[in-house]
């Protein structure tokens, strides 16, 4: 049982890591916590569902749904982030909460008469793989694998390409970046687009193993928040590792203590980490300036 839980924990955790990564990219790059990130995830899952229901294959639906959320990220940047670029943190937090409600309203209305819960068609048959006596869901294997590949690709992009380096420069110091000729506004746009892309990707990846419903964004938001807080909110590697730890912790808790505790694992992690070590495992210490 321990290894079964560990396997599903790693698979789910890699998806939490992907969602958290999208959130941390936006926080690190644009100094904004995106409370609408869960809704981006939910939008991708729902758009993917609509497309597959209309006969488009899994990977085609994934690509289109991710495209939709990327555009959504650009819209959020233009509509909510840019007008508030010089406003307080509080204003930004409220703005993204507002955006999350707007998205949720639209998605809920689009469900129409479909009912509140819809099932995403599975990618593979249901019989699990048994390796050395450990049960592994085939879907978990693929999802975890794709999530890890995406995270590695993203890390390479961020570390090696010119665009990635420009994003790093802006997140270090946006005045200095502007001074050396980087178009900071454009980079912000990319950051939001990229963050939403990651959130959307996770949404379509995870949709086949959970039910799709209008309020699904909240629970993933809490879990990826917990992952990001655990890893330290401004560390990309921290988000991924935090996601994995969060997935394993949650699966263990629900396996050994009961499924009702699965809902609370995220909050517990958030509160404990913030009380004991607010900068998380890998985050840089917050500095207080007057």
């Amino acid at each position, binding site marked *: 049982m321990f290894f079964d839980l560990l396997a599903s924990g790693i698979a789910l955790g890699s998806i939490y890591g992907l969602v958290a990564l999208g959130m941390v990219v936006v926080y690190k790059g644009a100094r904004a916590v995106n409370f609408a990130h869960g809704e981006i995830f939910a939008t991708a899952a729902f758009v993917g569902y609509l497309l597959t229901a209309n006969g488009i294959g899994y990977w085609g639906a994934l690509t289109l749904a991710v495209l939709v959320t990327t555009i959504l990220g650009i819209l959020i940047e233009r509509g909510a982030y840019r007008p508030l670029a010089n406003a307080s*943190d509080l204003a930004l937090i409220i703005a993204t909460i507002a955006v999350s409600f707007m998205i949720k309203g639209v998605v809920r209305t689009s469900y129409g008469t479909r009912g509140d819960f819809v099932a995403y068609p599975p990618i593979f048959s249901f019989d699990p793989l048994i390796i050395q006596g450990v049960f592994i869901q085939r879907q978990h294997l693929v999802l975890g694998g794709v999530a890890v590949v995406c995270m590695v690709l993203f890390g390479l992009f961020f570390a090696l390409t010119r665009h990635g380096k420009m994003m790093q420069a802006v997140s270090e110091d946006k005045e200095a970046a502007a001074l050396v000729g980087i178009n900071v506004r454009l980079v912000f746009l990319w950051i939001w687009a990229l963050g939403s892309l990651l959130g959307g990707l996770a949404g379509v990846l995870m949709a086949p193993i959970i039910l799709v419903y209008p309020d699904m964004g909240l629970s993933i938001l809490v879990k990826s928040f917990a992952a990001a807080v655990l890893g330290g909110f401004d560390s990309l590697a921290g988000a991924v590792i935090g996601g994995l730890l969060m997935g394993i912790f949650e699966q263990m808790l629900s396996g050994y203590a009961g499924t009702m505790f699965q809902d609370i694992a995220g909050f517990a992690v958030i*509160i404990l980490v913030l009380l004991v070590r607010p900068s998380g495992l890998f985050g840089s210490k917050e500095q207080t300036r007057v």
Partner: protein
Amino acid sequence: MIMARPERVLRYAAVAGVAVLAVAPWMVSLYKVHVLNILIINIILATSLNLVMGYAGQFAKANVAFMGLGAYTMGLLVTRADWSFWIAWPAGALLAAAVGTLVALPALRLRGLYLAIITISFVLIVHWSFLHARFLTGGASGFSVPHPNYFGLPIPNIQATYYLSLLTLLGAMWIVRNLVASGFGRSLLCLAEQELVAPALGINVFTTKIAVFALSGLLAGLAGGLHAVTLQFIDPQNFWLLQLVVQLCMVALGGVASLLGSVLGASIMILLIEVLRAFKGLWEFAIGAILLLTIVFFPRGIAGLVEHLFPSLRERRHRP
């Protein structure tokens, strides 16, 4: 000092508003009395949130949890322990205030984003406990609460509860108005503007924060108890994230650090909820859009706009 005209207008408007609220139960249907009652309770809640978020500048949003604790404590004491409402209600509010002081402790260390996250998590954990402590709270299906005993007052119970809410509101407004005009109010302002400077000015950050969280918890707890006897029902759904965002909307839309703002924000939101009640998706979108437009175009809310147009209406930070 000669009073400026807009200020006098505001004062008359406030008196007229209270007068209208006082006679309203005799003029309108019982359902409208009920809606007005909900409005009054929400003004108390908005005032309570504004105290912490606006005046003290602490981005804590645990109010919904305080409200829930006030409601559940009152309800359980009345239904399970046969306490009188008149003892159970303040007991619930005191418990909420006590928990408020506990929530103030992380606020001594965390600020901004982290404080927001930890308090939101706290709200969701309290909601989760209401949902899962079935043996006590009845879980998701909740439980009914009787009307308070009004000792044979010759008016319908709904009206009596309404007047109780109105009196509580007036008391809360009176206390908060005097408090923000006092030295304590100016300490809060200093916490909001420059927290690091506060100790240098001799402000005890520890006691100030604890006091403001406790008072906010007390008001939210009282409002929670009133909310429960108004609906005559308690279930976890009322103490969830949606409620939190609605309260946030009230404060942001009405105006941060303004009593007038709390009143205006709560009134507009409750009106909106009543009008859009039938369309769930639409009303979520509307709330989001209103909140976003307010933040972008009127960062200080409606009250900020009013004060900008009529500077003499700016709230006093000292006694006249």
